[in-house]
């Protein structure tokens, strides 16, 4: 009896004992859930397994910009279409939300009374209205645009209706690959110039116009080449034929609604993160750099932002994760994302609810963890390095 008491009064033993107990109970719980699910499925004669993935889907998906999907393709193809659509709207949303969020965050700290108020109202409004309502609001507005036969026209090549925004589609002809190679080369060389300029500045203090020279390289060089080799690109223009526009490119209202809602909603949170990051840099830093005679824009770019980023990036990561996960609300407006296509239609047509949900959840987990990994790498690269 005494020795028993001794065991429990030993802190190390106690902590190991309780941790093992908790893990054991957790494992037991998982085992129990799996067993019960299997039992209930069998009792209700619900077929299980992964065979349905190779069965033909039998339905069509209209929004599939990357894969040419047909109804004879399999449920696995439905999955890939969904993943790509989820990634598309998440990627575009993250980029746009970052730009808008930084802009609004900086505006809120500016001295312009009107801009500050507008930004304040924007942030408070969008942060406090559920995202789902915002998505539906944008969609309801877009669907009230003119009908396809009464489309708004711009220069006879852009058409806006409630079926989407139609624009000419570039068709690349032979020879365009040279232009493409030129663009890549321009990117690489501007990167090299940047490193060289930084090194030179560190050593000699002389500056080099990196931004304008990179701009010239990336834009003007490929453009020149493009015209020299005789414009190897034409456009496929949209034209109204029958029920719809044929040809050209189209951005669907479902995508636009999702993109706008996700961007505007998440940007409000990002702007607050940015604001807090900038405010975290002490006033002394600003004053010290001003007394060194730095320009206002330089103070922001060289002194404030690099220090603010250390505070901004971790919460920014979680905003990216939120945006990606929130893209699953696309189901509300029929945006053909992962949840809508595979986790919705395939699930329902095959009845394999558990299988589909497991796959969808595992996919979101993978996407989220991937984003986290990259953001953590970036975060480490901007952290203050002790010299």
């Amino acid at each position: 009896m005494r020795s028993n008491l001794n065991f429990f009064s030993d802190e190390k033993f106690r902590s190991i004992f309780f941790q093992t107990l908790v893990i054991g109970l957790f494992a037991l719980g998982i085992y129990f859930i799996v067993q019960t699910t299997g039992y209930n499925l069998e009792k209700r004669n619900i077929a299980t397994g992964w065979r349905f993935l190779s069965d033909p889907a039998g339905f069509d998906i209209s929004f599939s910009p990357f894969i040419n999907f047909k109804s004879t393709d399999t449920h696995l193809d439905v999955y890939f279409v969904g993943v790509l659509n989820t990634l598309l709207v998440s990627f575009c949303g993250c980029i746009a939300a970052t730009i808008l969020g930084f802009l609004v965050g900086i505006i809120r700290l500016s001295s312009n009374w009107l801009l500050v108020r507008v930004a304040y109202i924007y942030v408070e409004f969008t942060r406090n209205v559920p995202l789902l309502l915002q998505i539906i609001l944008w969609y309801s507005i877009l669907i009230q645009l003119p009908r396809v036969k009464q489309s708004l026209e711009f220069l006879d090549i852009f058409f806006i209706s409630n079926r989407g925004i139609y624009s000419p589609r570039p068709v690349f002809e032979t020879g365009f690959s040279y232009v493409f190679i030129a663009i890549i080369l321009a990117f690489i060389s501007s990167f090299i110039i940047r490193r060289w300029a930084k090194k030179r500045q560190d050593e000699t203090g002389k500056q080099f116009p990196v931004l304008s020279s990179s701009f010239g390289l990336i834009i003007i060089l490929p453009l020149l080449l493009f015209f020299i080799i005789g414009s190897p690109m034409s456009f496929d223009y949209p034209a109204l034929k029958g029920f719809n526009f044929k040809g050209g490119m189209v951005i669907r209202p479902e995508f636009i609604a999702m993109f706008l809602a996700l961007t505007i909603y998440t940007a409000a949170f990002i702007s607050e993160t940015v604001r807090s990051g900038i405010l975290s840099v002490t006033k002394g830093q600003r004053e010290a750099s001003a007394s060194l005679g730095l320009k206002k824009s330089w103070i922001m770019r060289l002194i404030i932002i690099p220090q603010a980023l250390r505070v901004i990036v971790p919460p920014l990561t979680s905003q990216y994760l939120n945006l990606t996960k929130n893209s699953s609300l696309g189901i509300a407006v029929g945006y053909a994302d992962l949840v809508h296509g595979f986790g919705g239609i395939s699930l329902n047509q095959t009845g394999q609810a558990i299988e589909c949900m497991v796959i969808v959840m595992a996919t979101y987990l993978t996407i989220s963890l991937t984003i986290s990994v990259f953001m953590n790498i970036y975060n480490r690269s901007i952290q203050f390095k002790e010299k």
Partner: protein
Amino acid sequence: MKKLLSIFAVTVFAFSANAGTLDDVKNRGFLKCGVTTGLAGFAAPDDSGEWAGLDADMCRAVAVAVFGDRSKVEFITTTGKSRFPTLASGEVDMLARNTTWTISRDVNLGFEFVGVNFYDGQGFMIPSSLGVSSATELDGATVCIQTGTTTELNLADFFRLNGISYEALPIETNDEGKENLFAGRCDVYTTDASGLSSTRAAAADPGKWLVLPEIISKEPLGPLVRHGDHQWGDVVRWSLNAMIIAEELGVSSENVDAQKSSNVPEVLRLLGVEGSYGEMLELAPDWAYQIIKQIGNYSESYEANVGPDTPLEIARGLNALWTQGGILYAPPFR
């Protein structure tokens, strides 16, 4: 989505009792019946907020059979997508939700269709201003389609078979389809012909809409229950059959009391005067009498909800009795 997930959770954690559904329903004191989110003529709240329609009558008929009281139903709305998990998880005792009877649903999903209460087929509805007279002229059109339905698969097959293209606009509910069609986001709305009639009747100006003549599929719609509980399946099956047999025998809610002294043996069996059919089903002896008294026979339910005198204006057609040129047929009551 939330609903789907909670249903998923319920499916996982359901430690459902082994007692039969009939006992569960009796103990609970009311029937849980899964219906659509609102489809006029089949199941939709009427002006006074009461659920009404052919499917709603089906639910009420089962409630009457079990409790002798048409009000002992809780109507639970389901979308095309949530209906099967809702039934499988035991959230509802039965579905009467214009659901097509197919082999995969009957076999693979573990359900049992107990009969057909409406023979339907898939059609197309367009604005008459489009000037289209046949579905084969719909090349390139944008089509509103409810996801997770048989119509979604039929649509893909039809356009593939005819070698014409279309753009699908997926929607979740009939209301969403209506909204998108009326706003011109899609050119065509396709669903069961009865659903189209219902949608057309709900339009501000029904004359502006045209249901195309093509019927591209068989859609036998009927009530369904979970597979494996045959006693409960029998109760639902014979509640439906009782209404059909009543029409065949000329028994209606108006003459049902007088018919109790009929000299036709099957009428007497149906109304519980002779035989012990109620006992076999573990129901009250006058269960079928009560259905006819409180709900009416099939014809009465049809005429009140979807028939030619209603806004839906659907002629009996295939849904007429087998003796009157239709295919509505119930096994004998003996």
